[in-house]
């Protein structure tokens, strides 16, 4: 086992609840607390911001190369020592981003798999990726 894998080997109990349908947001939370639910604001101003920033969604987001993500949804940033817990949906999306898929490809996959509308997903996706950026888990130079 490599050095990085050793860090990843830590397993924690992640949220194991079924993926809700239609998709709801419970993507990411701090590990050291009870998994935090990021509430999605649902106001007109939020929607306005969302439309304004829709371009960001279209760009390709990259997760930092050194971020370790285990199958359980445990995320470890070796640069800061911070760790996070993703629920299964969040993990699925992070893995899709990490595999280099574009937003459109991710959207297609999620629409095929889950009962939801594209507009809602886009809003949730933007909210989620903004959180990832705030947590400095994305590569600041990684966007196309």
């Amino acid at each position, binding site marked *: 086992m490599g*050095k990085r894998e*050793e860090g990843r080997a830590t397993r924690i109990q992640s949220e194991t609840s079924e993926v809700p349908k239609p998709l709801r947001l419970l993507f990411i939370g701090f590990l050291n607390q009870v998994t935090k639910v990021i509430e999605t604001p649902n106001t007109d101003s939020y929607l306005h911001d969302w439309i304004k920033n829709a371009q960001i969604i279209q760009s390709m987001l990259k997760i930092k190369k050194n971020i370790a993500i285990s199958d359980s949804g445990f995320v470890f940033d070796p640069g*800061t*020592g911070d760790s996070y817990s993703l629920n299964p949906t969040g993990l699925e999306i992070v893995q899709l981003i990490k595999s280099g898929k574009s937003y459109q490809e991710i959207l297609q996959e999620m629409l095929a798999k889950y009962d939801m509308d594209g507009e809602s997903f886009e809003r949730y996706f933007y909210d989620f990726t903004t959180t990832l950026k705030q947590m400095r888990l994305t590569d600041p130079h990684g966007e196309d």
Partner: protein
Amino acid sequence: MEKIKLTIALSGLNNIDSPGPGIPVTRGLRDSLKIDPKIIGLAYDNLEPGPYMHELIDKTYKVPYPSDGIEPLLERIRYIHEKEHIDVLIPNFDSELFTFMKSEKILKEMGIRTFLPTMQQFEERHKSNLPQFGEKYGINVPYSEPIGSIMDFRKIEDKFEYPVVVKGKFYDAYIAYDFEQIGIYFNKIAAKWGLPIVIQEFVKGTEVNVVALGDGNGNTIGAVPMRKTYITDKGKGWGGITLEDPVMLELTHKIISQTNWRGGMELELIRTSDNELYMIEINPRLPAWVYLAVAAGQNLPEALVLLAMGMEVKPFTHYDVGKMFIRYSYDMICDLKEFEQLSTKGEL
């Protein structure tokens, strides 16, 4: 390979809520595949836990406080050496380092080896000299000034913005938000650790640390960066995790190579939200969390002893990232007879 039998005397056996590094250093030495150590504890207080931890400490001697002067301490060391034939001595307290550095030559003549910073290295990294240190070696440091009285601060108040950090020359640091608080902390620290008190610019960010070992020729033998994940109300790390941080390591290598640092050190750094590193302190010894470095693959206590013995030590090239420590407290049951023996005879 056969292990080298060595008698190693060390202090810092106060494995309490603000722990000394003696026990973690001992654990590193006990883990060594190269050294078969006999550990001689040097204790200042009858209630330090180390002397009663017989699976780690073979024999303990009480020693006089450094403030009693060099001669009483040397006399006691001479007595212990006669009985135990000490090969290497590792002082683990900041407050005793000066005394042992001053006595390095005498100890060497007695046949006791140490591996300590030089007096110049020790003096120039003092908290009160930090701005000059930063300027000399091109390192970001927060602005600071030493003061001898609270009224001294009035004269330099314009140079600072609140909050500021009020620091003792050896230990203790408090964040003060106004002049009144500076006065309170000044008196509190001065009563315990003496003067000067250092007033330091407050740099907002995350505290990160590096434990490192320099060979005295500018080479870094080992270095492991860490972030405290749990901090006690005394500011001590009760949990920590090793980091992958090339910038912190580069800074450590730079400091060690430019100063030709000899011995163990702990770098205390602040990483700002802009990802800039500020050095807030260099502790001239291995820290109490050194066993995390051992567990991550760098047995720095072992390397320090081998360097003290004049042996060649190859620099460590890797460590495990994401290795964690979680400190815990434990009620050790001790026999009154042992306490009596240490209290009355000064030996256990």
